[in-house]
């Protein structure tokens, strides 16, 4: 089997045992990128030479070492000295003056960075079509979108250009592209992973997470990037279990909840069929399955699209042409701001900034933003109630498989609705993961979402691992 088809756990084992050296492996992945990148366009930029070279480090703590394995990073996570642009024109040429905490941790674990992956501009989107640098193509069918906003990371892993990648998830931006590209996408609990050095979209919702071929690989990266960071006051001082150790053991006796509000009109019948089959697998593994209700699910999209753009409009106020990035010429300061932002931001970014500014503006704040914060409390409480009865929740990750490029780009509301099953989790701050659970009749991947309570990534990973030990969907590869 080609090395690019192996998992991170398999490759790091070979690197550790010196069956393989990291420079050879890096060259192997570069060759793969050169072979397929013309079709996929997953990367905004990639490095001919590893951007971080490990020196004389052979012994990493158990289940934490990468031994020189190449990792791809979404273009909104700062790597010192590297251009980091959020796939936006406004940050063109911006070289990050510091490493994000996750980057420092990956460096310590022996990662080499092979490139930065394409994304919807500032993570605003569900299709990776709003990038200033062009569209990324789904490796399973090139005229379809890879999902978004971490579409480049998901497509790169699916195409074998890299084994693992980091993404960020504000309303589904890791899980939705993972589902559409047939890979594993994990969004940790809000506060599990430091956001220091992640260029902010919506600070109360953003979380860095992983895209990988297997659940075990997600556990490996989570072992490295988790933990309290004094530079992110919202990161939490909770213990990081060894996420690889927790994978062991069977699932017998665990209780799964199936929320009836996720099996509604608009859910594609082939997606539903694949998820129903996955539920049967869990029953065979001894999981008790019961129907549950998350009664306020239908309010989640409205709630999210009020809160997230409000926070974004505030966070993106810093991009004004003064301190960094692109500046447009003008005779006075006010015109410089307005010209720079009009020229530097794409259509979707402008749409969200205006929407957010409006919902925070005098006279509308209470009707929109404050109302949404109250709705958020109600939606979060739905999950709290559910987790009194069950250990984990199973849902489809997305209502449909990957749609066609340009299909929804001129209809923002339809685009927003493609996040309907992933958004509630971010509002509640809890962890969730998408794993491949089958294909539709066009051979497009379907994702199964596993949700657990706050800081219970251990159960989520164990459940996902148990599924992958008994199925082979995650081993299927696109034909490139």
């Amino acid at each position, binding site marked *: 089997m080609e090395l690019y088809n192996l998992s991170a756990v398999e490759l790091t084992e070979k690197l550790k045992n010196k069956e393989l050296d990291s420079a050879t492996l890096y060259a192997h992945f570069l060759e793969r990128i050169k072979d397929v990148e013309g079709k996929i366009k997953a990367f905004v930029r990639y490095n001919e030479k590893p951007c971080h070279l490990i020196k004389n480090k052979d012994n990493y703590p158990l289940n934490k070492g990468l031994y020189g394995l190449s990792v791809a990073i979404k273009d909104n996570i700062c790597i010192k000295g590297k251009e980091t642009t959020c796939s936006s024109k406004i940050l063109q040429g911006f070289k990050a*003056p510091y490493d994000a905490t996750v980057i420092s941790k990956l460096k310590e674990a022996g990662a080499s960075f092979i490139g930065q992956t394409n994304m919807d501009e500032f993570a605003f989107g569900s299709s990776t079509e709003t990038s200033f640098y062009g569209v990324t193509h789904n490796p399973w069918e090139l005229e379809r979108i890879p999902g978004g906003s971490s579409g480049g990371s998901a497509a790169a892993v699916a195409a074998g250009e890299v084994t693992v990648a980091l993404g960020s998830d504000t309303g589904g931006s890791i899980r939705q592209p993972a589902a559409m590209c047939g890979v594993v996408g994990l969004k940790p609990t809000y*506060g599990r992973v430091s956001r220091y050095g992640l260029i902010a979209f919506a600070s109360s919702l953003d979380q860095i997470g992983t895209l990988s071929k297997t659940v075990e690989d997600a556990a490996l990266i989570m072992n490295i990037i988790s933990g309290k960071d004094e530079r992110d006051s919202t990161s939490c001082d909770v213990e990081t279990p060894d996420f690889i150790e927790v994978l062991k053991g069977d699932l017998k006796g665990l209780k799964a909840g199936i929320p009836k509000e996720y099996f509604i009109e608009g859910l594609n019948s082939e997606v539903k069929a694949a998820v129903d089959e996955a539920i049967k697998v869990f029953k065979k593994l001894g999981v008790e399955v019961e129907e549950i209700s998350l009664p306020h699910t239908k309010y989640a999209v*409205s709630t999210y*699209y009020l809160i997230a753009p409000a926070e974004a409009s505030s966070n993106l106020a810093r991009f004004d*042409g*003064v301190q*960094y990035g692109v500046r447009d010429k003008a005779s006075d300061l006010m015109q410089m701001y307005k010209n720079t932002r009009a020229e530097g931001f794409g259509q979707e970014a402008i*749409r969200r900034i*205006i929407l957010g500014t409006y919902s925070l503006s005098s006279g509308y704040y209470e009707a929109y933003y404050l109302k949404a914060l109250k709705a958020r409390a*109600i939606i979060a409480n739905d999950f709290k109630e559910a987790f009194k009865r069950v250990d984990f929740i199973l849902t489809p990750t997305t209502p449909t498989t990957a749609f066609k490029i340009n299909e929804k780009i001129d209809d923002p509301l339809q685009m927003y609705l493609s996040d309907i099953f992933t958004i509630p989790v971010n509002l509640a701050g809890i962890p969730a993961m998408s794993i491949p659970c089958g294909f539709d009749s066009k051979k497009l991947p379907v994702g199964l979402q596993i949700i657990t309570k706050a800081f219970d990534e251990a159960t989520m990973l164990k459940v996902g691992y148990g599924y992958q030990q008994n199925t082979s969907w995650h081993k299927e590869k696109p034909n490139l």
Partner: protein
Amino acid sequence: MDVKYVANLAKIKLTPEEADKLQLQLDNILSFFKDLENLNTENIEPLSHVLDVKNVFRDDNPKVSISKEEILDLAPEKNDDFIKVPKVIG
């Protein structure tokens, strides 16, 4: 919503065509949000932070940070130790 007014608050210049298109799209999105009016939020406390954590303090010890030169190097225009901008008062 008056898109032109809000765009001015957000410091974004729009052409009349862009403003018209956005007006239609955002009116459509805002009417979708009306479903929230059906949700009873009486006596519900707004949730702005999901975790049950209180104010977090750390010791105030100075540490080495990013140098002034590195920050100035990122600026589109500079003059000695300052970032330069177009005139503020006409």
